[in-house]
């Protein structure tokens, strides 16, 4: 080692002490030691990061490499500190598992039992949980802001960025929603996702299930959508599924249309589900994607952020109002019920058949 600048013993005492320099290749070797050691110590994080990576050549390199490093770290017990820390912080390496409930069939006329509507009031406000990807986070915040002064509605925003139904190995929405519904008492679930789902579908352990663009993909995605819808239907919750608004990227936009069609199909046979047609409502005059929209006949406003996916605050407000409009018919307002006891509230069907999908 050499000093970066000449050091002198007769310097004043207060003068800063000079750092020792390092030979360039020694510095490089130290950097390699750091990287290798960190990889071993944090092998679990590497594997999770590699699993979370989009499919492609980078993931093809990262995942086997991370798995190999993890095996070596496990052999040497070098990953114990990270495991211990994750345990202490309640972080799971593997997403929780879930079994979808038996599939609900459309009720025959008069064959369902109905659950009486819950009357909402300032003392017993309507509790709305908003789940999904980053779009849902924005939506949840906009809804919360929109109803900030309304004591009859409470909005809980529970979105997670970069999530969807394609990658339960990264974030398993059905399992998370089931946990949330078990712990917290919400009346209505708002779910919005799909912008991250233009990729190969995987299972909870990261195994590929269906490649994007194949009939198998649509079939598996449909199973997941239907499963989540049925999961929410436990006789108490209503579900508002918000379609994926069109996006600028044509490939992602095509996938969004497929997802929205699946959602519409599955919701049609489930009376506890309402779909917010964000695809049409936030499209341009010709039904195609547009950065700018004329809302309520006013001057065009920017509706998408520069990424061509996320919505601006103006359009989030519009979408929030649509979601509240979709929720409203499910619940009776205290004022309404005192003036009219004939508020039409859709029945929640309870007829089920064993799962065949």
């Amino acid at each position, binding site marked *: 080692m050499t000093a970066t600048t000449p050091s002198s013993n007769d310097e004043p005492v207060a003068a800063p002490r000079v750092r020792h320099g390092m030979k360039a*290749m020694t510095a490089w070797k130290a*950097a390699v030691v750091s990287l290798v050691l960190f990889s071993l110590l944090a092998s679990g994080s590497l594997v999770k990061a590699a699993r979370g990576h989009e499919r492609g050549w980078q993931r093809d390199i990262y995942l086997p490499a991370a798995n190999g490093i993890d095996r070596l770290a496990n052999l040497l017990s070098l990953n114990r500190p990270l495991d211990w820390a994750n345990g202490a912080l309640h972080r799971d390496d593997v997403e929780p598992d879930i079994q979808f409930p038996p599939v609900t069939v459309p009720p025959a006329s008069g064959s369902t039992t109905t659950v009486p509507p819950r009357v909402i009031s300032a003392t017993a406000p309507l509790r709305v949980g908003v789940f999904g990807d980053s779009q849902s986070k924005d939506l949840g915040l906009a809804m919360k802001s929109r109803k900030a002064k309304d004591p009859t509605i409470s909005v809980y925003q529970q979105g997670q960025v970069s999530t969807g139904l394609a990658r339960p190995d990264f974030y398993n929405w059905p399992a998370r929603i089931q946990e949330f519904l078990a712990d917290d008492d919400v009346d209505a679930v708002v779910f919005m996702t799909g912008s991250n789902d233009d990729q190969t579908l995987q299972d909870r352990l990261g195994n590929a299930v269906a490649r994007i663009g194949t009939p198998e993909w649509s079939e598996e995605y449909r199973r997941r959508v239907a499963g989540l819808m049925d999961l929410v239907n436990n006789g108490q919750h209503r579900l508002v599924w918000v379609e994926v608004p069109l996006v600028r990227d044509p490939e992602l936009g095509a996938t969004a249309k497929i997802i929205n069609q699946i959602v519409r199909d599955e919701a049609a046979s489930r009376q506890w589900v309402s779909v917010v047609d964000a695809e049409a409502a936030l499209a341009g005059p010709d039904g195609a994607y547009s950065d700018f929209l004329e809302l309520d006949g006013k001057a065009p406003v920017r509706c998408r952020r520069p990424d061509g996916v996320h919505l601006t605050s103006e359009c989030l407000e519009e979408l929030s109002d649509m979601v509240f409009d979709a929720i409203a018919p499910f619940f009776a307002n205290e004022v309404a019920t005192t003036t009219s006891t004939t508020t039409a509230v859709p029945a929640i069907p309870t007829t089920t058949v064993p799962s065949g999908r």
Partner: protein
Amino acid sequence: MLFPTLTYAIFFVLVLGVSWKLRPRPRLWKPFILVVSYIFYGWWNPTFLLLLAASQVGNTVMGYGIARAPSDDRRRWWVRVAVTANLVLLGFFKYYGFFVESLISLLSPLHLAPTPLLIEVTLPVGISFFTFCAISYIIDLGRQEIEPANVIDFSLYLSFFPHLVAGPIVRASEFLPQLKRLPNPNAVDATRGARLIARGLIKKVIVASFLSQAIVDPVFGAPGAYRSIDIIVAIYAYAVQIYADFSGYTDIAIGSALLLGIKFPDNFDRPYTAATIQDFWRRWHMTLSRWLRDYLYIPLGGNRGSHFMIYRNLFLTMLLGGLWHGAEWTFVIWGAYHGIGLGVERWVGERATVPRNERADRAPKLSRLRSELGLESTVGEVPVIGEGGDFVMAEPNDVLPPRRERSPWVGRAMVFHFVAIGWVLFRSDSLATAGTVLWRALTAWGSPELVTPLILVTILAAIGVQYLPQRVGLTLEWRVSSLPPVVQGVGFALVLLVVDILGPQGVAPFIYFQF
């Protein structure tokens, strides 16, 4: 490629080794660094490499035009053409949408909205930074302060990956000479480089991400839904978040460059210890502040001219500085807010330093006073934007009994709050949101929903650390630099592990990438 990712770590370690192997052979080293810088930039969107290359080639050509101009007039003509070309490039990609949307809002009531002009223009990452670097090169050439660089050297200057996307805004006069001299391969300041990278990762991955998720994003996303205490703490939290985010990026950039043997200027110097707004701008994004000073404030007239002209120059500089940060009215108002703040501070400073019986309303005008005192300011004497009291000096004997000295802590508290309130404009997606945040911070009292002891401790710690004497960090560096390299490497790995454990899963892009 984001700094706090494993991809960057692998990329950097590979580049570091090869770079030092090739460093003695500049003909190989320069193209190598250029190629890896292109890979770094193209990782986001390879399309914009063409734009970057066009800027590099175009500015090199115009640079030669300036250097070889046969007359001063011709040189000035080249400078004007080159600066205009750079501003057109920046203006189109960054401000086209802003101006068209503003025009539509303005003309809509008259049913004259030019809606066909509405097209989406994707903003290339880092365009504000590399365009400002290019403009500084052009103007310095025009001022004959530097020599023209060949296309490889200039391209390297513009696209050297550590500073390419979010600064620091390094000057050609700082960078180009480093290409000509070989750094000492036996005395790499590795400890400082590693410390800067570790510090940057802690700031970005732990502090900024935590505060962002815990309180800033929820409150600024739905300010109408939260109470005053949540909002006030969120305002403080954002002040810390933006500092941790941007200075964290800068730390990693400077540390990476240092390990490669290139020195960058500092970009932050404990900004929340500033006791005046002017001092804040000396400490915050220092390379932008000096760019604005040298290429905008001084050409506008600087401290020369009448009082009105000086305040106008100050205001315009900050207004345009605000616009540089983003094509939104919130940024413009933020810039104006700081311009007004600097102006008021300067005015108050002058009132406090000019003897009461010699104030402008009773005594000769300030210009005469300056002249009489022989303190005419010249361009070269202006040290920073808004330098107050640099030409109006009062003799102590002339002053009425001095006012009691204000504690510096009062100034620090006032400046911090002034800056933090300004950040509300910076963070809000619209002026309406900013208004809601500020209004509810004062009026919506009630039980907080989001504030936790951990949030408060993080905010206090992040601000408190800035008051630590600098020698603490320097002594730490010195002690660590005495350790064997392998021990330093192990220590750095442990820091990375802590960052990994305490940080969130996935890292959001840096705030300043959008600029």
